[in-house]
């Protein structure tokens, strides 16, 4: 799915940082073996998070549209990986995020998710972004306008060791509510 021109102005931007989190696009993209190796370095014990991240990505690396490393702005350390990929629907894109939970306290995972969603809407002319997560993480996505989907994503064809939850958010509520949250995550109180 081709990217569109970057949207600027007061709503969507392709800026990839907030006060605490930075996303850096990986270019050239990692191939499947390198991505698996990066996941193993990030979460050596594997677990459900890694299984869902890898198990719900497209099987063909070409279907992955963009890869990112996730970094903490305060310590400059890498704490995660993220992918945006074709999910088989012309009007949707899939976001996958994997963080080392010990390195991402106090809502940093949510902050990285919000940045990834914003970049997806800013860069692709999609109607919605869907993102799969292990069911045990579901309570962390209680944002207004985020919908829990009943239909698993098309790439969910590999066996997973845990229950999967797929969320989606549509462009209109993202532009109305999500961008407001992101603005607050980017600007401190003295900048408001």
């Amino acid at each position, binding site marked *: 799915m081709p990217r569109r021109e970057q949207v600027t102005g007061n709503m969507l931007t392709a800026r990839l940082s907030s*006060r605490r989190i930075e996303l850096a696009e990986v270019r050239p993209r990692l191939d499947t073996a390198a991505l698996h190796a990066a996941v193993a370095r990030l979460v050596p014990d594997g677990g459900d998070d890694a299984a869902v991240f890898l198990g719900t990505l497209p099987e063909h690396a070409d279907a992955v549209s963009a890869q990112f490393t996730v970094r903490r*702005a*305060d310590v400059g350390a890498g704490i995660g990986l993220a992918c945006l990929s074709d999910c088989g629907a012309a009007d949707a894109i899939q976001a996958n995020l994997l963080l080392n939970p010990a390195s991402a*306290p*106090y*809502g940093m995972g949510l902050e990285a998710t919000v940045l990834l969603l914003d970049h997806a809407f800013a860069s692709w002319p999609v109607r919605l972004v869907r993102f799969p997560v292990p069911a045990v993480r579901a309570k*962390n996505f*209680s944002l207004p306008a985020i919908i829990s989907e009943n239909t698993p994503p098309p790439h969910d064809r590999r066996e997973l060791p845990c229950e999967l939850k797929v969320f989606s958010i549509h462009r209109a509520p993202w532009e109305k509510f999500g961008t407001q949250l992101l603005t607050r995550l980017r600007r401190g*109180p003295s900048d408001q």
Partner: protein
Amino acid sequence: MASYVDKDELVTQIKVQAMTIMMFTASEPEAELPEPTGMRDLDSFSVVQLILSLEEIYDVQLLEEMPSFTGETFEELADMVAGFVRAKENAGENLAQADT
């Protein structure tokens, strides 16, 4: 003269904000919500919303400070917030004295 924020008032404010956020994000709004008693009762979204709300109310920067927060109770969070409010008020007083 300094007007340091009262800790009890801060704890109450934190509880009110936390409860409000939980009410808005409850998956079953009609169900009776348990009152949050500490940070562990809040999911990621609620923690972020709570911190952003406190930043707005007290006009202090907190989000970046959260990685160093090791407490689990609202009282410990109130201590941290009070410290930043106090530091900000002291800085304002020092600036005012330097101007006179």
